[in-house]
């Protein structure tokens, strides 16, 4: 700030608060001694400050302390009961339930794996082949039943699977 120039209001306001460095303060003091306009600005800022300091500084009412005590007591109670998540509140219940749940899942997975394996997988090759041949015979038998034989024809029907005798139709 040059002594002949008018400083801006930010500088003048900071000067009122003693918040500028010593060199600038000295220059400003010189400037203010000869500048009515800047002196009026400074006086205006000081007036505002004085006006604000006319406001009282009320002490907090006792009600605040009372309300705070209640809120803190509630907070402490909450920490012990309500505010903690349920799994923290009931660890004694949580861990056995978690173990039981995990065991149940393991059993379910094992059951699903076992039940998805085809029954045939447990049979030996001979049994499976034999069962397949029986099914083919059964299909042939069903086809013969559906077919219309010529009048008076004697048709030999293969034995029904599981039966030792054939039949005449």
């Amino acid at each position: 700030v040059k002594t002949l120039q008018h400083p801006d209001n930010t500088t003048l306001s900071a000067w009122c608060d003693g918040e500028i460095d010593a060199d600038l303060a000295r220059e400003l003091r010189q400037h203010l001694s000869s500048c009515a306009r800047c002196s009026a600005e400074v006086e205006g800022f000081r007036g505002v400050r004085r006006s604000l300091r006319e406001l009282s500084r009320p002490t907090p009412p006792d009600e605040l302390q009372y309300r705070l005590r209640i809120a803190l007591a509630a907070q402490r109670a909450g920490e012990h009961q309500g505010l903690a998540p349920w799994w923290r509140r009931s660890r004694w219940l949580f861990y056995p339930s978690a173990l039981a749940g995990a065991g149940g899942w393991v059993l379910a997975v094992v059951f699903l794996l076992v039940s998805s394996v085809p029954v045939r997988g447990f049979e030996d090759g001979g049994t499976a082949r034999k069962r397949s041949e029986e099914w083919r015979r059964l299909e042939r038998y069903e086809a013969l039943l559906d077919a219309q034989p010529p009048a008076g024809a004697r048709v030999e029907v293969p034995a029904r699977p599981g039966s030792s005798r054939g039949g005449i139709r």
Partner: protein
Amino acid sequence: VEAIVARHAVLDEERELVARHAAGDRSAFDEIYSRYSGLVFHLALRLLGSREEALDIAQDVFLRIHRHLAGFRGASSLRTWIYRITLNQCRNQGKRFRPVSVPVGDGEDERPIADPAAGPEELAMRHEFTERVKRALGSVPDEFREALVLRDLEDLSYEEIAGVLGVPLGTVRSRIARGRERLRCLLQTAGEVHA
């Protein structure tokens, strides 16, 4: 040098208070309340303009202090930290300062500063004056009012204000100056700048 020594002593005291609180000593929190409740209530009252809101804010601020004090690492002074919490709570309130029809803290909490020898007429005039100042302060934009209240009512240095508001020193200077300009205009309109 004396100022630096005094500041270090305050910081040591604050550290001790924090440590005692963290160790479960309830008297530490009582001490913090007795030291800072006035500061918190007054700042909230001047920023929000309502006694009830200031009470709510003060309660929330102390609950937060109680909850988070153990984690306070001393990056700033405890006072600055508490100012910052209060300011943030006031901002979160999301309500602008409203000129109140009933004088703030009517009765016990707020009495105009007055010469005890002053007569009833002078007392009434002073009361009227402070009401106008409060209304004018309420009309100043939030960011200027915050800086102005911290400077002229709380007597914080520009550096402390920068710490509380989280802005550079230049911004603090500018906000205070602009706040004063606005307030001066408002009070001049009402013919109320204090001579």
